[in-house]
């Protein structure tokens, strides 16, 4: 099996949008699921949400370069092949029919909401979308999402696109305008998902968040991705990655994401010594 890169676009500074030939995965993938990729045989196993699929032939993933292995991935161009790609993993999103829905994406997490929005529309739901990013440069997939969603609000930290503010400002604005939703999704940085969940909780709104703890195998084998939801331990890779954010213990998740920060600094140190690429952040977490 050759997981050839068919298309590659730089989506934002340090973020790449690629299509990978993987017919067997493309034909089985559903919204909300992810793959585990390895750029080469020494890579970490990197979990990436499937952003889109094409004619049962290829999958699309969008990733941010956060460390050694994602940097290796970024070195690959059209015609090159990933050494490994496994999936689709995780439980698919629970898609309702004919409901009012709100879908929030932040940063590279916007990649993960594209298939959710598409599938929601296919099932006759009304979709309001809030996209958030640092600035205009980091805002990805805006046009694609505007085309399919019924309504799209944009928020950036510096106001260079849409309104200046956070996605939670968007949520509050919608609620203040009297909007009501039957279900919501929020995918993005952990801190964003936490605060979106707090707002949703105030309004008794079911909010699916795609958790991103550090994973290895992605098949329930290692237990490293354990998270606490409603006081029970769940494995994000097989029980999730989507959980109702109102019941997620966010502090535990954020703490566990920091597990390898020390080793990443060490990898950077070695970079200076031996020319290995720097690693600034944990790579095991789902993007």
């Amino acid at each position, binding site marked *: *099996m050759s997981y050839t890169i068919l298309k590659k676009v730089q989506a934002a500074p340090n973020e790449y949008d690629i299509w990978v030939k993987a017919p*067997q*995965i493309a034909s*089985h993938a559903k919204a909300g699921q992810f793959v585990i990729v*390895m750029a080469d*045989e*020494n*890579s*970490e*196993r990197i979990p990436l949400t499937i952003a889109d699929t094409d004619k049962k032939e290829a999958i699309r993933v969008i990733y941010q370069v956060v*460390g*050694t*292995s994602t940097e*290796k991935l970024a070195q690959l161009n059209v015609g090159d092949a990933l*050494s*490994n*790609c*496994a*999936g*689709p*993993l995780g439980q698919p999103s629970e898609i309702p029919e004919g409901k009012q829905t709100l879908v929030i994406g932040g940063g590279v997490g916007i990649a993960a909401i594209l298939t959710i929005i598409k599938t929601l529309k296919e099932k006759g739901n009304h979709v309001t979308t809030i996209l958030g990013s640092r600035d205009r440069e980091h805002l990805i997939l805006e046009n694609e999402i505007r085309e399919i969603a019924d309504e799209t609000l944009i928020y950036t930290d510096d106001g260079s696109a849409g309104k200046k503010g956070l996605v939670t400002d968007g949520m509050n604005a919608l609620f203040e305008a009297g909007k009501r939703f039957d279900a919501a999704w929020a995918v993005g940085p952990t801190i964003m998902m936490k605060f979106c969940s707090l707002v949703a909780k105030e309004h008794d709104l079911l909010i699916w968040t795609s958790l991103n703890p550090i994973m*290895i*195998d992605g*098949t*329930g*084998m*290692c*237990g*490293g991705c*354990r998270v*606490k939801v409603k006081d029970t*331990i769940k*494995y994000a890779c*097989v029980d999730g990655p989507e959980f109702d954010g109102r019941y997620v*213990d966010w502090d*535990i998740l954020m*703490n*566990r994401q*920091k*597990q*390898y920060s*020390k*080793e*990443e600094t*060490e*990898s950077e140190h*070695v970079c200076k*010594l*031996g020319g*290995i690429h720097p*690693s600034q952040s944990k*790579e*095991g977490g789902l993007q």
Partner: protein
Amino acid sequence: MNAQERKKQRIPTHERKPQRRKKDFFEVNLGYEEAEAVNEAERCLQCTNPLCVKGCPVNIDIPGFIKKITEKDYKTSGEILKQYNYLPAICGRVCPQETQCEGACIMNKMKHFQPISIGKLERYVADWNREKTDSKKELNISKAVNKKVAVVGSGPAGLTAAAYLAERGFEVTIFEALHLPGGVLVYGIPEFRLPKEIVRHEISDIEKLGVQIKTDYIVGRTITIEELRDEFDAIFIGIGAGTPRMMGIPGSELIGIYSSSEFLTRINLMKSYDFPRHDTPVRVGKNVIVVGGGNVAMDSARSALRMGQTTQFSHHDTYHPNHVKVVYRRTESEIPARIEEYLHAVEEGIEFHWLKNPVEYIGENGQLKAVKVQHMKLGEPDDSGRRRPVPIEGKFEVFDVDTVIEAIGQTPNKLLLESFPQLKLNRRGTIEVDQNLMTSVEGIFAGGDIVTGAATVIEAMGAGKQAAKSIINYLSDDSDSHHQK
């Protein structure tokens, strides 16, 4: 010691010195030199009714392969082994021979005699053949039978079933979820006990039989059970016991607490002992506690010890010995670990604390700092026949620790099982099978840890072989009517 006396005692194999070996991941046991292997083989009494063969889960012709060693005909000896066992270099290293072939050896019944060192001889022959024989050797494969069998999982059970079927002309495809084949042989058992090069070699021998291995294939996800049933005439499920059991005590979410599965997968499969040359890190503190008394606990403890040392793979230039304790809720006589592994751990300086069981993890800023253990005593025997550990009320102890590795067992991985609800499970959540290892679904067979719960490599191989025989019977009973639609 005269020659007669010497014959009573087995010839020991060479082992690297503990002080040296605990600093790296190279193999601990170095096996026999040729003369030693021949001398050890000559100790064998060549029983006409050999008990050792009955003690072996795959019934290897043990006197047969040993006889050939005395004749220095290692090639034929290797061929005898491969008739019964496709993974001899692995079995020679990791089988619990003391409770199987060697445990059954007649010499145990003779005063002052030690059993034949069957495992080490098996290893010698397998290694000789790997190093000395031409890889383009003629394969003995039967005429194609035009039947396709899918094998799910490339661990010892799946590999054995696949090899047995392929040799008899079946078209076999193995589906493996991870990026490398081998299952527990690659993600679980450490390099210092089972070099991965050997696993790769034995798997490539199986591929030469025509077995196709598809990695990155998650059955139930990458391909559905229905698709498999459409394409294949029979299916063997050998997916192992793939989900870690954890203590679930307060503080389990702290940084520094691993399941043995995660810890060993990082080290063995992802090669984090070679970080940063391999990208996956593993974090091991100076003070480590391993919970459990099985082989996985020994592997975890000895790996943790090595992670603190200077290794040739490491860029550290300083010597940082880790302090590793194993805590076990029963005593030394109840540990399920192989005696050899336990002794190796003791030699390397692992501390053992018996009759202690963690009840709470104590942290600071999200990082594990200490473990509170309950002191235990032994009560009445339980289902396993071992005396049950019971807490001594009010007696606790606190250990300062940075890392805990829980090695307390496995439960079935539900990823495949939940995508295949027609499969009947028993009350432990493992797959129910009949005496032919057929599941509740016709044409679908299962064996190994997913049926028995966590057991040994060789038992899984025995199950793989038995299932392969059943599949052959099943598919030859009535040629086309079984094709699953």
